[in-house]
């Protein structure tokens, strides 16, 4: 006789029920997508908007205040969006670097034995992270930077190197003369030599126990080689300083636009706000990471005769990084996504330039699609890179 499986109704069979539920979900979702697409096509026809990405080749006709790649009003919409994308990248990279440095300093200050320093760091974290980022951006842009000297007044000078007025930051602009490529090549060569030197020193220390002054050699190479190249080629790099004299052609004060290196105030405000805000979160991450390392590690390291510096560098930080990296990644992603708030103060980032294009062409779906695609791929790339790094520093267990 054949063995019959127990007879159950289809509804009570978990496998069958799973398939039914999933089929239902697929059906509902496909109908939803179909419904949305049908409505959208209908609406677009009514409003006479041609869908597709052909508009990207049309002449843009608007100016952009900060361009990292060549752009003019006669360039295409696609070019304008590309300019915006590079501006987003710029603010994200500068912001991430500044926020990391500030965040680590404050996170370590929070753990300081000095009461004044740790209290100050605590106040910083608790005040900054509880105030909306947009408010901080607007504060820096509308309230703080507008109070700087106007173009007719004496600019505020920082250490004689950087001047500030309502047009932003002004600094010396390097001009690369003939032969300056030698210095650049020397700089790259210095980096390559440093990497090999460090490997060799590490190997030698593993084999013989002898130490090599890696830090000083690195500094000497990175500074010395390009300097040597500059001396040999006779200093081809010169600096163009911004012009601020008491009498002059423009505005009566000799303030000249387009001379010297100018950083627009929108970029200053956005970078300041983003890095100050994100630093408060990074500080908490760093503090938690360091506190996660048990005190026994420090004591053991001291017992082995390591001093305070090497203890931190060789024992505590490598272990703390393991705890710090994953949340740090999500803060970097947050900063990148938050840079889209640039649109509120008119910094020409991806969203702001895209918004202008959207207003001029009405291609809502395409523009929003581009935005989302770009931010999604930035997010996925960053988290991919960070995961790779995380795997490298992760604890290798049996």
């Amino acid at each position, binding site marked *: 006789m054949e063995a019959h499986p127990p007879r159950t109704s289809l509804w009570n069979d978990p496998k069958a029920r799973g398939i039914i539920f999933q089929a239902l979900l697929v059906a509902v979702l496909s109908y939803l997508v179909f419904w949305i697409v049908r*409505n959208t096509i209908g*609406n677009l026809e009514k409003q006479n908007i041609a869908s597709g990405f052909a508009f990207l080749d049309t002449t843009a006709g608007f100016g952009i205040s900060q361009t990292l790649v060549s752009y003019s009003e006669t360039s295409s919409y696609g070019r304008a969006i590309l300019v915006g994308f590079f501006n987003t990248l710029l603010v994200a990279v500068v912001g991430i670097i500044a926020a990391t440095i500030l965040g680590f300093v404050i996170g370590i200050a929070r753990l300081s034995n000095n009461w004044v*320093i740790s209290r*100050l760091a605590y106040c910083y974290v608790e005040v900054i992270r509880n105030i909306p980022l947009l*408010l901080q951006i607007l504060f820096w842009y509308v*309230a703080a930077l507008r109070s700087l000297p106007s173009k007719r007044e004496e600019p505020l000078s920082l250490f004689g190197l950087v001047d500030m007025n309502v047009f932003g930051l002004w600094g010396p602009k390097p001009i690369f003369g003939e032969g300056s490529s030698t210095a650049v090549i020397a700089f790259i060569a210095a980096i390559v030599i440093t990497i090999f030197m460090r490997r060799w020193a590490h190997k030698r220390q593993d084999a013989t126990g002898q130490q090599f002054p890696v830090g000083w050699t690195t500094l000497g190479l990175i500074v010395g080689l390009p300097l040597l190249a500059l001396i040999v080629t006779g200093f081809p790099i010169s600096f163009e300083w911004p012009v601020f004299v008491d009498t002059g052609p423009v505005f009566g004060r000799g303030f000249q636009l387009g001379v010297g290196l100018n950083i627009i105030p929108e970029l200053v405000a956005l970078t300041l706000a983003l890095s100050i805000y994100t630093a408060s979160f990074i500080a908490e991450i760093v503090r938690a990471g360091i506190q996660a390392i048990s005190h026994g590690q420090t004591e053991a390291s001291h017992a082995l005769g390591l001093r305070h510096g090497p203890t931190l560098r060789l024992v505590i930080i490598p272990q703390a990084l393991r705890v710090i990296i994953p949340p740090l990644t999500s803060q970097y992603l947050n900063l990148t*996504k938050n840079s889209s708030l640039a649109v*509120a103060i008119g910094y020409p980032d991806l*969203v702001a330039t895209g*918004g202008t294009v959207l207003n001029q062409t009405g291609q809502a779906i395409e523009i929003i699609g581009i935005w989302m695609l770009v931010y999604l791929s930035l997010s996925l790339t960053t988290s991919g890179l960070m995961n790779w790094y995380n795997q490298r520093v992760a604890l290798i267990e049996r």
Partner: protein
Amino acid sequence: MTDLSYVRADESPNLPPPVNTTGVIGWMRANLFSSIGNTILTLIGVFLAYSIFEPLIEFSLINAVWEGENRQACVAPPDSGLHVGACWAYVKAYLPQFIYGRYPIDERWRVDIVYGLFALLLIPMAIPGVPFKRTNALLLLIAYPIVAYFLLTGGFGLQIVETNLWGGLLVTLVIAVTGITASLPLGILLALGRRSNLPIIKLVSVIFIEFWRGVPLITVLFMSSVMLPLFLPEGVNFDKLLRVLIGVTLFSAAYMAEVVRGGLQAIPKGQYEGAQALGLRYWQMMGLIILPQALKLVIPGIVNTFIGLFKDTTLVLIVGMFDLLGQIQSSFTDPTWSSPTQAHTGYLFAAMVFWSFCFGMSRYSLFMEKKLHTGHKR
């Protein structure tokens, strides 16, 4: 041999500890001036604190203007060289607008009732020892939204108030509270979906969560205000506030899902197996055994998501709605109060309001974390 002997019969009294190790002086020596490096740090810290707090206090208190009818009060007479600080008179004059927006003046009692009811229901909910939690939760989550909806929008003999008249703190709170209450159930479903054994449900949940978490909120808001009307059939038109609410809810549901997933993962496998061994079905297992424990674990995470959402409500000003920050921003265009310190004052006020809400909530989350840490972690 000698009869000179001395045996002390009682203990000598304890000497007091050295002056410089106790009290304020001892504390300062240990914490502020223990070494040269530490002393330098202390001095730098004191200097920093002074250069931050001195101008702040001078601006917001000492030089501030408290009373006045218009901008004259807040503008220093020319050539007087006076520094006028914060113009609190302007905030005072604008306060009703910051709280209610352009809500009709005669109907503002309705908003007051909504605010009051919310506080009345939320406070007993938030204090752990108060009884009737279940009734309270039902009232807060089911009865209250209906009452608040009709009170705010009108109907049943109340004058209809269009949502474009709403503004200020009202819009901020409506978006934040609706966003969080609507996104919690959606987030729980998504989290369950992400941990489901059914491949398609899992895939759909993962795509949904990762998509919303990968894009900035501002693009979501643009999407809901520009693209959503295109998706709907002709003639169907949503209110702008509702469209923003949909966007915000979907966005925060993705974040909520990740918070809840963290809680689900923290529940030991034995709990799932135990529930199945008792013959509970999936929803019984989740509803009776897993979710009550998981949600309790992630209350701090939920509060943190709420704080994030509360701060993010300011973004709606970019799509042309007037939340608290938007209302303050728009008041800067009023010539009656235009003065050099108007923007500073407005932003300082907004910062204080947002800060007190967010700081209060984060303290509450810390308190709950301590309270709920009942020590059965593995």
